[in-house]
């Protein structure tokens, strides 16, 4: 019976409101708020990146589950904003948590589903007996070009899951994926900002893959929407996951706890995983969760999860809960945001 043994998240403390971004670019904040349902987004401090976010999430997971680091035999980090083009973030995480020299590790990239691809990989390694425990992390400090619609949503955060066979708090009953070659969103090597294929982002990309993967996993598991306590999806904005949930037949009571984008923005590889983390913060034994990520390019990973009685045995408050990270924030204006995110370029003599 393999599944999630522990989990931990990290969301940077700084937040910016759409009003600030809209003020600078002469857009209407109200229409942004109602249009894409984003009320604020997280912003990383200048000294934070995917490595620091991954380390904080990993440490929170280790602390919460009292995980023996020496038992972690694999670390995979999924992101589209790894700090190095060549030099894996996983190596930095391994060193920072004190993992063994004998370790499977790599960085993954599949737009916003690289972290969940890591989960599937680690799950297979656990099931096959290659490792006792493995860690999969999804984290991003995503960039939206100044003035682009993505600037309202692209944010920062990440979540780490430790997977194993013993002391499982949430059993992964089944996982499956769908993949297609879809030009909805991409970033070429060396380009600072991504490009989106405007008319491809909705129907042929997000909705087709998310809904297909959701229907496939429900069919294979003999489940119906009403059989789930919670449903969580990838959240590029506050509107898409809500529409996907309703299309599939889920109610607000099922999707509201995992829906974080309205307050933290789109954390890309961290998005669905952090939503799942928020659900695990409050889930009870026997709760059934459907979790479906989406990565542009494109594909979806779906998970059918059952929460076990072990969830009551770990001290969930021993690491910061999502609720706690949402309550302790610092608001910044666009000028500070632009400075933090290096949208203001300083001379080579300075940096």
């Amino acid at each position, binding site marked *: 019976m393999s599944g999630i043994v522990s989990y931990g998240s990290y969301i940077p403390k700084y937040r910016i409101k759409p009003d600030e971004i809209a003020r600078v670019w002469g857009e209407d904040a109200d229409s942004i708020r109602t249009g894409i349902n984003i009320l604020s987004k997280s912003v990383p401090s*200048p000294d934070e*990146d995917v490595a620091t976010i991954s380390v904080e999430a990993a440490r929170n997971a280790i602390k919460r589950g009292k995980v023996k680091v020496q038992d972690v035999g694999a670390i995979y980090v999924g992101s589209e904003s790894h700090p190095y083009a060549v030099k894996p973030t996983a190596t930095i995480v391994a*060193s920072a948590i004190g993992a063994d020299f004998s370790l499977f590790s790599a960085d993954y990239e599949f737009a916003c589903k690289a972290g969940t691809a890591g989960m599937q990989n680690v799950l297979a390694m656990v099931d096959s007996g290659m490792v006792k425990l493995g860690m999969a992390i999804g984290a991003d400090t995503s960039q939206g070009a100044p003035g682009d619609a993505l600037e309202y949503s692209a944010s920062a955060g990440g979540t780490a899951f430790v997977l194993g066979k013993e002391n499982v708090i949430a059993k992964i009953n089944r996982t499956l994926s769908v993949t297609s070659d879809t030009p909805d969103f991409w970033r070429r090597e060396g380009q600072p900002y991504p490009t989106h294929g405007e008319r491809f982002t909705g129907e042929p990309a997000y909705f087709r893959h998310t809904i297909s993967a959701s229907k496939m996993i429900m069919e294979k598991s003999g489940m119906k929407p009403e059989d789930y306590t919670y449903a969580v999806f990838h959240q590029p904005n506050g509107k898409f996951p809500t529409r996907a949930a309703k299309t599939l037949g889920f109610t607000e009571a099922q999707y509201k706890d995992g829906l974080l984008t309205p307050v933290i923005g789109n954390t890309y590889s961290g998005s669905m995983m952090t939503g799942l983390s928020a659900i695990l913060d409050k889930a009870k034994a026997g709760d059934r969760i459907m979790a479906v990520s989406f990565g542009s390019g494109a594909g979806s990973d779906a998970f059918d999860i059952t929460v076990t009685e072990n969830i009551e045995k770990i001290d969930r408050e021993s690491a910061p809960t999502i609720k706690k990270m949402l309550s302790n924030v610092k608001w910044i204006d666009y000028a500070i945001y632009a*400075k933090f995110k290096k949208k203001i370029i300083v001379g080579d003599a300075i*940096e």
Partner: protein
Amino acid sequence: MGKLSAVWRETNHRYRLIAHECGNCKKMYFPPRDVCPICHRESIGKMKEKELSGLGTVESFTIVHDAPPAFARQRPYVLALIRLDEGPVLTAQIVDSVASEIDIGKRVRSVFRKVREDGKGGIIQYGYKFVLE
């Protein structure tokens, strides 16, 4: 290369706050020391690695306005003397707070942050900084 290998050698204590405990007098040293300056020869071969909790208290602090170029985006920043719960005192940056929130006696905990970048193509150094608890 000499600088790079110096950074690499310090990875353990900078990433994980690894201290050395004297096996003789039990005093904790951070950064780690190979010999206890109190016990001298008595401590040789008895210095044990210990991972510090990262929890501590602000003993003193200063606000740096005339920041080095690499800190341009963080100016002004707070540099503090922090007494860790296990005993050692270290100097570190306190982040995610404005100077007016920081005071002597405040509780802090360590976080993992970028410490410096060696230009756009160089190595990124990571290490400990602190936030208010």
